[in-house]
């Protein structure tokens, strides 16, 4: 008797556990919300970019939720719920929070953080768990050269940046504004960013034989304080064009010394540096005529780009001056579009949709974003801008994005 009573108790317990499991399982539950996990650099070194990224993501989420959510195959719409943490600009924290988002918060998909170091670190987590992860904050091609299947990047590569600049230079040579062959002095930070930049220059040189001659190809350390030795080499190279890839502190120090030494080139570019407000604050008129390549600028004349800039101003009561919120907004929109194309929250289907995505009209130059099949990094041309006297900035390339004419050669003082 006692034994049969025991078996009954066990049987009832098993029944309740199974029933509870079935009731609580994702298969049994109807999903009316898609959980999007994200950790951003809301404090610390990259806090400014993190703040703008948050705005971009929130704008895209509000926009889609205002339409009822993302439409799925079953005719239903799922609203987007953002689960956001602060990774404090620390890669280790970003990794830990990503684990938490996937294993505890059970997010369906992820949006990326800002900066190559954060994205590089955190992306191993969604890759491990097979969660679609789309980021607009890491451009270094190293992130996308690891053979990861679940990681997508909406920032065109740094090699694409220099390649775009070289394409513009080729056009200027064809128009007779620069000599042929055009002598280029190239310097770059000795890291993945700089190596990408160099690769883009060399790729363009290979594709256009006879147009360019590389008279200097010099890496330098990111923490360099004294640029005179480098700039003496640049001066001795007697180049027509000076291209240097560096981040803002390096650009600021280098260009100050460049100006002080009275160096002159017909075309000067420090990669993406130059049009920032801080550039003119630090360097004054020395930034005039500097050319820079950007992922996005409020100068782009496309209706969708202008609409975004207007929406941003209405919401945040300030003009948009940086690319961060634009790429964040576009990254989120691409992810939502992939979910719509997949028609469900099945992760594999979302990933397939991303792989085959041709997102248009995009707010970036070229108006189309698609991912390279092998690397999953977006490919689209950069928009090139030039600083003008008086603080004005004009978009000069590509033609369908231009708001003014490039000044080349730079007028001599």
């Amino acid at each position, binding site marked *: 008797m006692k034994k049969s009573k025991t078996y009954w108790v066990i049987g009832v317990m098993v029944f309740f556990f199974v029933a509870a499991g079935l009731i609580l399982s994702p298969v049994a539950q109807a999903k009316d919300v898609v959980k999007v996990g994200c950790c951003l650099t809301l404090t610390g070194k990259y806090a400014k970019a993190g703040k703008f990224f948050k705005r971009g993501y929130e704008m895209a989420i509000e926009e889609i939720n205002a339409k009822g959510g993302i439409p799925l195959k079953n005719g239903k719409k799922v609203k987007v719920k953002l689960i956001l943490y602060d990774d404090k600009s620390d890669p280790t924290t970003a990794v830990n929070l990503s684990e938490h988002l996937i294993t505890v918060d059970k997010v369906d998909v992820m949006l990326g953080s800002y900066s190559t170091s954060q994205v590089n670190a955190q992306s191993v987590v969604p890759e491990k768990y097979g969660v679609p992860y789309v980021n607009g904050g890491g451009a270094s091609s190293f992130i996308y050269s690891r053979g990861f299947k679940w990681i997508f990047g909406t920032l065109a590569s740094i090699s694409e940046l220099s390649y775009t600049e070289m394409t513009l230079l080729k056009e200027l040579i064809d128009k007779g504004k620069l000599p042929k062959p055009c002598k280029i002095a190239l310097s770059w930070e000795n890291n993945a960013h700089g190596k990408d930049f160099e690769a883009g220059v060399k790729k363009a040189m290979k594709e256009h034989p006879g147009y360019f001659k590389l008279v200097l190809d*010099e890496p*330098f350390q990111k923490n360099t304080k*004294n640029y005179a030795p480098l700039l003496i080499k640049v001066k001795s190279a007697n180049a027509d064009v000076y291209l240097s890839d560096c981040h*803002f502190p390096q650009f600021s*120090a280098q260009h100050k010394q460049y100006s002080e030494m009275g160096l002159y080139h017909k075309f000067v570019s420090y990669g993406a540096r130059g049009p920032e407000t801080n550039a003119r604050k630090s*360097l004054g008129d020395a930034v005039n005529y500097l050319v820079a390549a950007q992922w996005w600028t409020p100068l782009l004349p496309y209706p969708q780009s202008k609409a975004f800039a207007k929406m941003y101003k209405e919401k945040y009561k300030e003009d948009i001056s940086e690319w961060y919120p634009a790429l964040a907004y576009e990254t989120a929109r691409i992810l939502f579009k992939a979910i719509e194309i997949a028609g469900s929250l099945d992760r594999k289907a979302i990933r397939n949709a991303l792989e085959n995505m041709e997102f248009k009209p995009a707010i970036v130059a070229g108006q189309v974003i698609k991912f390279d099949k092998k690397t999953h990094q977006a490919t689209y041309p950069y928009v090139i801008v030039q600083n003008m006297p008086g603080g004005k900035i004009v978009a000069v390339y590509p033609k369908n994005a231009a708001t003014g004419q490039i000044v080349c050669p730079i007028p001599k003082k």
Partner: protein
Amino acid sequence: MSINYLLVNAILFGALYASIAYGLSLIYGVMKVVNLAHGGTLMLSAYVAYTLFTQFHIDPILSLFVALPVFFLLGMLIQRYLVDKIMDAPQIASLLLLFGVWLLMKNVAYLIWSGDEVGYNLSYALKTVKILVPVSIPRIIIFVISIITTVLLLMFLKRTYLGKAMRALSQNRDACSLVGIPVRRVAQITFGLGTALAALGGILASMIYSFSPEFGGNFLLKSFCIIVLGGMESTLGVIVGALILSLIESFSILVIPIDLQEMISFVLLVLILVVKPTGIFGRRATI
């Protein structure tokens, strides 16, 4: 032309490096404390100059008269309420403590100014004067101030009672107490003066560099190299060490790739520690 640029540039950078290293040298020389908060002071003073310039249009040279006394007091407070408490503890304690102070300064900077790289543009920033080669006016100002600071510091240490007391303290703390030198007071003033000198270096550096809360670390490492090279307790050694470092950094590009330039300070540091640990001037030449 290139050699002239390298030479003039090396001399000017040497002056800047010396300005930045004086504070570290003084505090170590007198108190045998490695002030890791030196980097934080460089950074905070740069922000002070930036704020005074952008908000109140006060030139960074004039801001020295405001900032230096403030940092002097800050240094005295750090010594009085923090460093003094662990003077008898193993040296690791002061290293960790001052590292903590540096981290605190960094986080305060993040809170107040955020992590953005900032800089300011002086109206005379790009105006140049020809001294063999074109040299910008800020660099000439930095050079002149560095020379004045060296002379004043040497005179202070040699000719004033307080300066002599500091030199005595650097030699033997117990003996100072025996002869009636107020050791704790002298230590406080030394730390205050060292902090003010670090602030001087930070403000001068802010005239030519942009900065963020991460600023200062690289200069701190160069300062270590300079004070080891010149002699850890020698003021004259600082300027000589700074000049040697900047000359080697500048002229090294004639023989090594530019991206190895930053390695020079560390190679020199290791070499000097192995070959002549007391530095060029060593203890015997202490002023």
